[in-house]
C-alpha cells in the first residue's frame, strides 16, 4: 500500500509546477510554443541542443536548434546537487526581487556568484551532492550578469561595471573548452577579489544573450553609442548566425528606444517606423514561420508605438490631432493590419482616442473603442487604453443623441461603468492610474 501511495505521490509531484523543476520553453517546427520539464541536457553547443524532456507524462528526446529555445530554466531546488539547488534558489530570489544581500540573508547576486566560480569536486562519496559542473558555472555566470544588471538599474552603478567584468569573463570562459582550467579574478565576498582557477564553458548558445546583456548594460550606463553598436552587431549577425527571434526583437526595439530618446515626436515616429521596416526585413530572412510571425508582429508594434508618440505630441499641442489620426488610419488600413489583430485593434484604439480628443464624433469614437474593448481580450494594453477613452466617448455619444432628439442617458451613465471596469480589470495599468488621478 505504501508503495502505491508513493507512486501516486510521485505522479502528483511531477505534475506540480514549482521552482524546483528545470523547464524549457521552445517553439517547434509547426510554430507551436511548448513548455516541458527538462530531465537532462545531453548536448548543448552553439549549433545544437539535445535533451530529454517529459511531456504528456512520458520521457522524450528533444533536438533543437538553439534559436528555437525561448526560455531555458536551469537549477532544481530538489536536486541532490547543491549547485543545482543554488541556481534554482537564486532564480526564486530574482523573481521575488531579492537580488542583493539583505542583512544575513543572501541575495540572488551572491548565490549566483558562488555558483559561477565554484570548482568544488566534492568530498569522497559526496561528489554527486557537492561537485560543481561547468554548465552550472555557465548558468551561474549568466544569471550573475542578469542580477548585476538588475541591481545597476536599481541605482547601483558600480554593479553595471561589475556586470561588464562578468560579461568579459563569460566570453573568455566560453572561448575555452568546457572543463578547461583558467585563472581569473573572482569575488571573495569581503568586498574584494582574489585570483582563482575556474572552469571554461566551451562554445555555447548563451553567447548572443550575453551580447544583449552587454548592450543593455551600456544603455544602463548611459553609453548610448556603445549600446547602439552592441545592438547593431546582434542585429547584423542575426540572419547569418541564426539567433532566436525574441532576441532579435529585443535588440531592435531596445536600440530604437535609445535612438528615439530625446527627439521630437515626428522624428521619433520616423525612427520607430524605420525599426518596423528593419524588423520586417529581418522577418523575411527568418527560416521558419514562427520567426517570421514574431518579427512581423514586432514590426507592427513598433509602427504602432510611433503613431502613439505622435498622438501624445498632438495632445500636448505640437500638432493637430489629424496627424496621429491619419497615421492610425493608415496603419489600420494596411495589409499587415488584416493579418495582425494587435495592429488592427491598436490602430482602432488610436483612432478612437483621437476622435475623443477631437470631441466631435462621439458615435464613431464610441463604436471604434467599443470594438477594441470587446474584441481585444488578448491584448490587455489595448483594452486598457480603449477603456480609458471609452469612458469619455460614451457621454460624448450620449450628448449627440440628446441633441438629435433621443435620450442618451444610458450612455452618459455608461461612462462611469467603463471607468470602473478599467480600475477593476487593469488596476496596475498606467491608464487606470491616470483615470484615478483625474
Amino acid at each position, binding site marked *: 500500500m505504501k508503495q502505491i501511495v508513493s507512486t501516486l505521490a510521485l505522479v502528483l509531484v511531477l505534475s506540480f509546477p*514549482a521552482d524546483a523543476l528545470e523547464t524549457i520553453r521552445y517553439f517547434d517546427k509547426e510554430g507551436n510554443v511548448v513548455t516541458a520539464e527538462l530531465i537532462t541536457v545531453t548536448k548543448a553547443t552553439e549549433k545544437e541542443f539535445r535533451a530529454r524532456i517529459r511531456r504528456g507524462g512520458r520521457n522524450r528526446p528533444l533536438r533543437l536548434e538553439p534559436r528555437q529555445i525561448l526560455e531555458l530554466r536551469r537549477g532544481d*531546488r530538489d536536486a541532490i546537487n547543491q549547485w543545482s539547488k543554488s541556481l534554482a534558489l537564486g532564480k*526564486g530570489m530574482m523573481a*521575488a526581487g531579492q537580488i542583493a544581500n539583505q542583512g544575513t540573508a543572501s541575495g540572488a547576486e551572491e548565490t549566483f556568484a558562488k555558483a559561477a566560480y565554484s570548482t568544488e569536486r566534492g568530498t569522497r562519496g559526496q561528489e554527486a551532492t557537492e561537485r560543481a559542473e561547468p554548465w552550472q558555472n555557465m548558468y551561474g555566470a549568466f544569471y550573475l550578469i542578469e542580477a548585476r544588471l538588475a541591481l545597476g538599474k536599481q541605482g547601483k552603478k558600480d554593479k553595471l561595471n561589475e556586470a561588464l567584468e562578468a560579461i568579459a569573463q563569460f566570453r573568455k570562459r566560453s572561448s575555452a573548452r568546457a572543463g578547461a582550467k583558467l585563472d581569473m579574478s573572482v569575488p571573495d565576498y569581503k568586498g574584494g577579489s582574489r585570483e582563482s582557477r575556474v572552469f571554461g564553458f566551451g562554445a555555447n548558445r548563451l553567447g548572443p544573450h550575453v551580447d544583449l546583456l552587454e548592450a543593455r548594460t551600456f544603455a544602463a550606463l548611459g553609453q548610448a553609442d556603445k549600446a547602439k553598436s552592441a545592438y547593431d552587431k546582434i542585429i547584423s549577425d542575426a540572419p547569418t548566425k541564426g539567433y532566436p527571434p525574441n532576441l532579435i526583437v529585443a535588440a531592435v526595439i531596445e536600440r530604437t528606444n535609445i535612438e528615439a530618446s530625446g527627439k521630437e515626436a515626428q522624428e521619433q515616429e520616423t525612427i520607430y517606423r524605420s525599426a518596423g521596416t528593419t524588423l520586417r526585413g529581418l522577418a523575411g530572412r527568418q527560416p521558419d514561420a514562427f520567426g517570421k510571425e514574431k518579427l512581423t508582429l514586432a514590426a507592427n508594434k513598433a509602427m504602432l508605438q510611433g503613431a502613439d508618440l505622435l498622438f501624445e505630441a498632438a495632445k500636448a499641442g505640437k500638432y493637430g490631432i489629424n496627424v496621429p489620426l491619419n497615421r492610425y488610419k493608415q496603419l489600420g488600413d494596411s495589409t499587415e493590419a488584416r493579418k495582425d489583430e494587435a495592429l488592427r485593434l491598436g490602430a482602432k484604439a488610436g483612432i478612437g482616442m483621437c476622435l475623443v480628443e477631437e470631441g466631435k464624433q462621439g458615435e464613431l469614437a464610441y463604436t471604434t473603442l*467599443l470594438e477594441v474593448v470587446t474584441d481585444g481580450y488578448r491584448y490587455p494594453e489595448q483594452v486598457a487604453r480603449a477603456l480609458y477613452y471609452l469612458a469619455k466617448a460614451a457621454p460624448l455619444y450620449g450628448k449627440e443623441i440628446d441633441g438629435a*432628439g433621443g435620450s442618451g442617458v*444610458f450612455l452618459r451613465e455608461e461612462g462611469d461603468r467603463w471607468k470602473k471596469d478599467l480600475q*477593476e480589470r487593469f488596476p496596475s495599468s498606467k491608464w487606470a492610474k491616470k483615470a484615478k488621478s483625474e
Partner: protein
Amino acid sequence: MNARWIASLLLLGGVATAGTATEDLNFAQRLSARGLNGMAEKVLDEMVGSRDPEKQRAGRYGKALVTKQEAQFAALRYVLALEARTEPPFTRERVIELYESAIPSIQQFVKAQGPGSDSAFLLADTLQEFAEFLVGGSYPDHMAEKKEELVDANKDQAEKLFEQAIQLYRDVIKALEKKNNGEVGLDSDDYGAATNAEYQMCIAQFRLALIYPSSARARFNARAGDAEEVLDEFVAKHYDELIGAFALQKMGELKYHVAVRTGDEDAGQVALDYLESVITQVDEDPTVPGTIRIIGEALYWYGKTANALGRADGKLRKPNAARFGDTIRMGRQLKQRVRYGAKTRPALLAELEVADALAAQGNYEPAVSIAGEVLTKARSAGETSVVGTATDKLTNWVANVSGAGALPPDLMSQIGDSLAAQGLTAKAVTFYEKAVSASNTPEEIEEIANDAWRKIAAAYRRDKRYIAAGNIAWRVVQDFQKSGQGEDSAFYQTASEACWQAVQAFKVVSESTKRSGDKAKYDEVLKTFRDRFPDHPQNADSAFSEALDLYTKEQYEEAAKRFKAITSSSPSYWSAQLRVPVCYRRLAVEKDKENAQKWHEATLKAAQDLYALASKRSDVPQAKSAARTALLMQAGAEHSLKQWEAALKSRDRVFAAYPGVFPKKGFEYKMKIDAQLALGQLKEAEATLAEFKSKLKGSSFLRRTNFDVYKALRDKYKPLGGRERAQMAGRAAQLYEHRIDSSDKPGATDFWFLADVLADAERYSDAGTAYAEAAKLASKPGQRDAWTLLAAEMKYKDARLNKTKMDPRTYRKIIGETRDLFTQVLLPDAKQREELLPILADGSKWPSKKRWRWLAGKPGPLLTAAAVYGEKGAPSPKGLDGRWIAVRLIDRLHQLTEARPEEGSKKARFVNLWWDGAQLQLELYLRIAEQGSSAAHSKKAAQYGFSFSRRIISQYPSMDGPERVADIKRLSKQLEARK
C-alpha cells in the same frame, strides 16, 4: 436504530423516560448532539419533572448542557456563515445570550459537585469558547484572523473568561492529582481526563495570548511566554503521543504570531521547525481522525509562516524571498502526505498558501492553476469559505495570466458566473474572456467559448451597457450563421439565446435614441431572431406576448380574442386557450361589473369550449392541465351565475377526475359548499366541510366556509325546538369553536356568539365559560355586566340540569354564588343591597335611570335572578324570604316587558320572558301559600296569586301558546284552593 430512538419517535408528543438518570441524560445528550434539541429538551423536562431526585438533578444538568451545546452550534454557524459571505442564521447578540444563559446554570453544578467534576470541565470549555467567540473566532479549530474591532471591544471580558477557564482547568488537574495520590499515571483511569485538562489549559493560555494586539506588545510577550511555557512542558511530557504533536503544532502557530507581531525572525524560523517536525512525524491515519486535521493545519501554518517571512508581514522588517521556496517545497509534502484530508479546510488553505508563494515569485500561471484546483475541490467538499478565498485570489491573479492553460475553460466560465451573480461585471467579463482564450479544441470553442461570449453580452446587458451587449450577442449570432452548424448543435442554442439578448439590447437602444439607424438594426436583429430561431421560447410566444401585453394592460376583451386566435402550432397554445375564460372572468369581477352577468356567461361558454377541446387531448400534458382548469372555471362561472346544480356537478367532476389536486387551494371546496347550502343540502355541506378540513387544513377559504355552514345551521335550528334544536346547535357550536380555534385573536363577540350557540346546544357549562371569556374581553362595562350575568346564568342552568348528580352542598353553593352575583350586578350600590326587599318593593327607589335603561335592553337577568332567589332550598338572604324578592324582581321584569306587545315593538322579543316571569310568579305564590313563614303570609300569597292568574287569563286568553294556557290555568286552580 436502537430502541431508545424508536421510542423517541413514537413519543414525540410526550416523551416518557424509563432509563436510569445516567441513561436518560446520555440519551438527551445524543439527541442534542444530532441537533434534535427540541426532543432532548422533552426528555430533560421529563427528567426534571420526575420524582427521582437523581433524575431531577441529571435533568437540570442536561438542560444546562443542551444550552451550552446550542450556544456552541450557534457560534459555529454564525462564524461559518460570515466566512462564507452569507447571511448568518443568528445575530451575534443571540449567540452571546445563549452562552450567558448556559454559564450560570453550569456554575451551579460546579458549586455543588466540586472542582474536579465533569461540570467544572464543561464550564471551563464553555468559558473558553465564549471568550473565543467574543474576540472573533468561534470554535477551537477556527483558523481565520481575528477582527481587530472585536478584539478591541471585547478583550477585557475575554481575558477574564480565559483566566477563569485556566483556573478551572488547573483545579480539575489538582483534583485529579489529589484523587490519584499526587500523580495521574498512565495506568490511572483519570489519565485521559487529566491530559485533556492539561491540553485545554495550554490552549486557553495560547488563545489568551492572541487577544493582545501588536500595540500591547509587552502584555502579548508575557502571555505568549506563559503559553509557550505550558505548551513546552506539555510537549515534553507527551512527546510520544498524538496530543503532544497537537501541542507542538500550537507552539508553531504561536511562534508565527510572535514573529509577525514582534518582528522576531528567529521566532518565525522556530515556527517552521516545529511545524515541519509535526508534518514529518505524524502519519495520516483515517482511523485516527485527528491525524488528518493536524497535518493539514501544520502545513497551512507552515505556508503562512514562510510566506509571512517572504513578504515581511506585520512587524517583520526583512523580506526573505527564499522563504517562498520553502512554502513551495512544503506544497510537495502536502501532495505526498495528505491523501485522506486533501479536501479538508486546512489542507485546501495550505494549498492556497503554496499558490500565494508562487504568485509572490511572479509565477502566476501555476498559482492560478493551484487556486483553480482548490476552488474545484472546495466546491465539491462544500467548503464555502475556502471557495470565497480561492475566488478572491484568482480574481487578483488571473489578469496576470496570458490565458490558455492556467485553468480549464469551463472552470473559468464558472468563476465568471459566480462573479456575475455577485454583480462584479468587470471581473466576470475578465474570466469569461479567459475562458474564451483557454478554449482550444473545437468542442471547447463550441460549448464554452461561444457561451462565454453570450454570458459577456448578458453581463453587459444586466449592467445596462446595451450597445456592448447587443454588439457582442449579435456577433455570436453572426458567427453561428457563418459556422453552418445545425439546429442540433450546442452553438445553435447559444446563438438562439444570444439573439434574444441582442433583440432586448437593441430594443432599448432603439427606443432611447429614436434614430432610424438604430431602429433598422433592431428590426434586422428581430427579423433574424424570428426567422432563424423560431423555436426559442420568447420567439415562439411573440403572438402570445402581444396578447399577454394586452392582458397586462387590462384590455381583457381584446386579449381574449388574441388568445383565442393563437393557433395550435404555438408552444403557448394551451396557455393562451386557458387565458380566454380568465379574461372574461376578469371582466366580470373587476373591469366591467355592471355587465357581470354577460361576462360570467361568456366565461362559462369559454370554459366549456376549452374543456371540450382539452379533454380530447389527454396525451398532451398541458391539455390535461387545461381540462382541469376549464372544469374549475366552468364551476366558478356557474357558481357566479347561481346555477347551483350545474356548479355542483362540475365541481364533482373536477374532484372525480383530479382527486387530491387543489390548484385553487380550497376555493374548490368553498364553491361546492356554497352550492350545497344554496340548494339547502345542509348535511352534505357539513360533510364537505369536514372533508375540506381534513384535506386542506391551512386553506384561507376554510374560515369563511366554516362560518357559512355555521350560519346556515344556526338559521335552521333557531326556529326549532326540542332535541333537534339542541343537536343542530351542538354541530353549529363545533363549527364556531373551530372558527375561534383558527382565529389568531378571537374577540369578545366571538365568545358571545359561541356562548349563545352553546347555550342553544344545552352545553351550559361551556356556554358559561364562553360568556365569562366574552365578559373578560368586553370593552364596555354594560356588556361586561351582561355577559357576566349570562355566564352565571349558564352556571346556574348547568347546575340545575345536573342537580341530581350533584352533592346538595355544591348545588347550594352555586346557587348562592349566582344569586350574589346577580344582586351585585343588578344593585351595584351596597346600601341598596342591604335593604333589598323594601327597595324592590318601592318602585321609585330602584333601579336607577341608568340601570333601568340597561335592564330595558336586557331584562333576561331579572327572570334568572328571580328564579335563583325563588329556588327551592336556596339559602335565603339574612332575615329575608328569597321568594318575595323573586316576586318583586318579576314585577320589575313585567314593568320592562309586555304580555302582548304591539307588532314591531322592541318589546316583542321579550314576550316569552313576560310569560315565563308570570308563570314563575304564580309558582312562587303557590309555594309561599303552601309553605309560608306564617299562615297570614300563605293566605296573602294565595290571594295575590289567584287574583293575578284570573286577570291574565281573562286579559290574554291565548297567552303565548296553548301549553302556557294549560300551565297557568292549573296554577290558578291550585291557588284558588289555597286562598
